[in-house]
């Protein structure tokens, strides 16, 4: 069963009315082409300033009906879990209450369940296979702009499935952000802190990440979309063009994509494919590529990791694949994947730093070590990936044990102190504290992969005794972790 636009709006309104300490509903600044208000819902537990943010968008393509329902249902699942302290169970996947608590208490979850309400309404009242918004294209008999071609990343470059013809179902529109629905999403990105993003589509069981317009490469930074003309209504002119992506970012997309895949597979065995967007077919002007591209086009902007989900299998007919008679199981898979994305968006160092330090100096120091040193070698990036794998489960443990949390904060502070003075060395006491923490965390986890990762860390620590922080990092940069999941 599928909800109407009014029902989706009503659920958001009820949640914000009944549980205002969790839900805040805001009307986005622009009404849709047909004059409907588009809403965003913020979900968080506890107070405090703006946090790291995750934005989930559904209903971009009107006929992909199940995703707006999945997003609003996920909001309810997360809320109920936090309010009651209960686990979320989707088939064979159990999300512990402590995992959900960490997500709701450390992130701002921004949900736009239905960004294209006119299109959804048109599906339900006129044409179930409608894809675009309901723009009246002047001087043609054809309506609609494909909202997932209307964003400002190579907008109007007709590479693959993108068109400048108003009658096409992949019409990019008359200009980038010509549509109020896409401007609403830009508004959220411009005004809120969004670190992770997913545009939830159907179908094909895919987790997609940049790039969609060309194969990607990590060696030639001069090959950037910013050097290509947009609005050409022609394909990319350079034959064999390959778009640059920083190796660190590519690895992050791969790591998070595989975590999402695993979280979905654990539900009932559906194995999504995690790959660059071009794996589906070539596109330009898409939402998730735009989200990630913003910090490249304008280095003053925050980096946001943008994903596209393609939920549900191909069942042999497009109509049944887009709109299965019972989408329950597909929605359950998708919800588990969305939780995995949220979990991967939590940043342990930032969270501990915000809690224990008066300034951002310590966190900035460690971030610089990560991005300017570790990320420059393959071995260093493997260690970053290891850390990112374990930080969610580790934080869950730390949040339940104030003493351990204090120990972790002490180590972060000490690392930042060492980073600020290269004459200082890692002492026997430093190593002992770190080993004890890693061992305790390892003993407390039920996740075998996390335990092995922590054992790896513990083994590595012994060899760092007597080194400066930069010396320790240089050593880590040369030697990959032995265990490499995925």
């Amino acid at each position, binding site marked *: 069963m599928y909800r109407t636009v009014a029902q989706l709006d*009503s659920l958001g309104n009820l949640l914000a009315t009944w549980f205002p300490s969790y839900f805040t509903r805001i009307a986005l600044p622009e009404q849709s082409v047909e004059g409907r208000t588009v809403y965003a819902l913020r979900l968080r537990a506890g107070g405090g300033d703006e946090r790291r943010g995750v934005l989930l968008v559904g209903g971009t393509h009107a006929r992909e009906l199940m995703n707006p329902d999945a997003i609003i249902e996920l909001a309810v699942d997360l809320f*109920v879990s936090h309010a009651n302290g209960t686990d979320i169970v989707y088939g064979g996947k159990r999300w512990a209450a402590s995992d959900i608590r960490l997500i709701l208490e450390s992130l701002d979850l921004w949900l736009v369940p239905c960004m294209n309400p006119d299109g959804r309404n048109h599906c339900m009242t006129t044409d179930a296979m409608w894809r675009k918004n309901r723009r009246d294209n002047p001087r043609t008999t054809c309506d609609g702009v494909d909202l997932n071609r209307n964003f400002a990343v190579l907008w109007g470059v007709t590479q693959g499935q993108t068109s400048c013809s108003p009658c096409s179902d992949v019409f990019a529109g008359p200009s980038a952000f010509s549509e109020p629905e896409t401007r609403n999403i830009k508004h959220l990105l411009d005004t809120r802190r969004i670190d992770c993003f997913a545009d939830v589509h159907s179908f094909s069981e895919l987790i997609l990440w940049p790039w969609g317009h060309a194969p990607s490469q990590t060696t030639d930074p001069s090959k950037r979309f910013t050097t290509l003309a947009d609005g050409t209504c022609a394909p990319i002119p350079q034959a064999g063009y390959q778009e640059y992506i920083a190796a660190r970012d590519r690895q992050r997309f791969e790591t998070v994509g595989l975590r999402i895949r695993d979280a979905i597979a654990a539900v009932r065995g559906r194995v999504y494919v995690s790959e660059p967007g071009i794996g589906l077919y070539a596109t330009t002007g898409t939402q998730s590529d735009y989200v990630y591209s913003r910090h490249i086009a304008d280095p003053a902007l925050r980096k946001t990791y943008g994903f596209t989900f393609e939920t549900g299998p191909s069942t042999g007919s497009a109509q049944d694949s887009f709109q299965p008679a019972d989408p329950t199981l597909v929605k359950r898979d998708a919800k588990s994947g969305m939780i995995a994305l949220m979990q991967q968006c939590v940043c342990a160092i930032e969270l501990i730093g915000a809690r224990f330090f008066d300034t951002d100096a310590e966190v900035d120091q460690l971030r610089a070590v990560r991005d300017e040193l570790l990320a420059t070698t393959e071995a260093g990036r493997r260690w970053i990936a290891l850390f990112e794998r374990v930080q969610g489960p580790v934080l869950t443990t730390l949040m339940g044990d104030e003493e351990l949390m204090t120990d972790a904060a002490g180590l972060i502070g000490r690392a930042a102190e060492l980073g600020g003075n290269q004459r200082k060395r890692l002492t026997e006491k430093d190593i002992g504290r770190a080993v004890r923490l890693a061992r305790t965390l390892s003993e407390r986890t039920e996740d075998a992969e996390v335990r092995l990762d922590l054992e790896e860390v513990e083994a590595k620590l012994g060899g760092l005794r007597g080194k400066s922080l930069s010396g320790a990092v240089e050593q880590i940069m040369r030697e990959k972790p032995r265990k490499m999941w995925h």
Partner: protein
Amino acid sequence: MRMARTSRKAPAGTDDHPLRFEATVHAGPRARALARVADLDLDRVPDPRGDVRVLVSADELARLLDDGYEVHVHGALRQAPLDPGLVLDDDEAVRWLEEMVEGIPREEGS
């Protein structure tokens, strides 16, 4: 249903409810480049085998055949709204939420 150029006339449906065809496009005997299908601005949908699968009108179907492609039609559907039986009832939508949050104290008015 595999369509050849000589039998390309497909039923178009009525004016109010035109037919759409779900089809896969193949190179055909003239070995047309499938990459060029993108130039035809068709409504492409994912295909589990990586084929070029499209939703097309009768006119678009004819155009593909005229252009020398081989087209395999897998089904036809009339332009129509979503089956009303698949749309949740308003009362049911609210009842679902009430059941989900049952027992959690509401903060409204606080």
